[in-house]
């Protein structure tokens, strides 16, 4: 099989963005010089994206700005938030027009949300706290199921099934005021009633995953 001579892959980089807030190039040059003087090594050869959102004049000379920055040994990779007339200039100068990816890039994870249930979970009911912890203020009856991607706290008797760390979080725990469960599970490791009875003589407790097996410790609740 022939190996490909190139490969195209998406990747993201952090770039400094230089906001130009004034039309007058001389004024910009003056301020830039004083900034560069503070940390000359830091900016040397630094790739920059120029944000032109404050520039409204279509006649603005992008070439002039580019010369100014290049003469200070700054590397412009592209411009962003520019009016269309300036964007056209960028094309002829060989500069990329970059769309700010702020919205797309800045949400790698949804914030964790906690689900609170303030009543008994009855037989046949199933409650799932996606991407967060589950708190039940009440009992979980026989034949009821409570599931969470995070930890599960039950301020009442756990007589049904509780599954914490449903998405694989091995640090999740199950805490109940009275452990009388049909099944407890953390990140896929589970105990049935008899396993639980072998390990626990206490009423209230905390179940966690240690290595590949579950463990229970008494808690005074």
């Amino acid at each position, binding site marked *: 099989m022939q190996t490909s001579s190139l490969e195209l892959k998406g990747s993201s980089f952090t770039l400094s963005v230089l906001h130009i807030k004034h039309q007058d190039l001389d004024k910009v040059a003056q301020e830039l010089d004083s900034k560069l003087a503070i940390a000359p090594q830091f900016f040397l050869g630094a790739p920059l994206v120029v944000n032109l959102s404050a520039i409204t004049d279509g006649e603005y000379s992008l070439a002039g700005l580019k010369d100014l920055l290049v003469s200070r040994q700054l590397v412009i990779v592209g411009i962003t938030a520019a009016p269309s007339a300036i964007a056209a200039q960028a094309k002829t100068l060989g500069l990329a027009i970059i769309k700010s990816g702020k919205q797309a890039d800045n949400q790698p994870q949804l914030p964790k949300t906690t689900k609170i249930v303030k009543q*008994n*979970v*009855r*037989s*046949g009911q199933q409650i799932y706290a996606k991407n967060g912890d589950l708190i039940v203020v009440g009992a979980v009856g*026989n*034949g009821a199921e409570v599931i969470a991607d995070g930890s599960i706290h039950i301020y009442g008797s756990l007589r049904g099934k509780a599954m914490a760390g449903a998405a694989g979080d091995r640090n999740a725990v199950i805490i109940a005021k009275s452990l009388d469960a049909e099944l407890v599970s953390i990140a896929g490791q589970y105990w049935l009633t008899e396993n639980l009875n072998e390990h626990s003589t206490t009423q209230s407790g905390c179940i966690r995953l240690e290595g590949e097996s579950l463990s229970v410790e008494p808690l005074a609740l």
Partner: protein
Amino acid sequence: MAQIIVVTSGKGGVGKTTSSAAIATGLALKGHKTVVVDFDIGLRNLDLIMGCERRVVYDFVNVINGEANLNQALIKDKRCDKLFVLPASQTRDKDALTKEGVGKVLQDLAKDFEYIICDSPAGIETGAMMSLYFADIAIVTTNPEVSSVRDSDRILGMLQSKSKRAEEGLEPVKEYLLLTRYSPARVTTGEMLSVADVEEILAIPLIGVIPESQAVLKASNSGVPVIIDQESDAGQAYSDAVARLTGEELPLRFVTEEKKGFLKRIFGS
């Protein structure tokens, strides 16, 4: 404003129909105009317990389908003129009940009656769901044994999620526990769950404890609601439950083992 009360349990044979008949009769005897509706389409029993089986001409399904009007189908009780029975159909099945049809009938009944008692069939299928859907109050009939308690728990979950009040986000259905076939002696020997055990698991207010009693079977077979038999412990316990339902506060009776007297020990009970 009429109160719609469902007598439900999930499990069969725990005493829903007996309780429906007794509670409806009790309310009527207290002077409230009451109708008791049999939702057990295809397995109708309420008319037998009420002793009106020979007077059934039209039934609930006929009314839903517009084949008869309510006045034709309602049977007036012989013992109490405030009490009416709407019997179920014996020849149809539960699918004859539609949400619209049942809603319409209950709405019409609500114009004339103070209390509408819905006698739910066992199970969690159409018939049972229809009987609890429109309820304002649920009387969850439970025997002191684990399978009955678990099924009651399931029904309580349904009341909290599948009833009209739950779906429309109104004030939730008021739930009461009615413990039937209770035998204090068997609780003492550990064969039966105690009142406290059941209350702890179901966590709803207790409205009455009906002792296991010969009088219940006798009353059922003779078509007289057991509440009429005020000599019996079960009849008195139902009266207490009805009184609590209408807001009275009474201490629980028949929950502790009766000390057998000298003569009873010799001659039996």
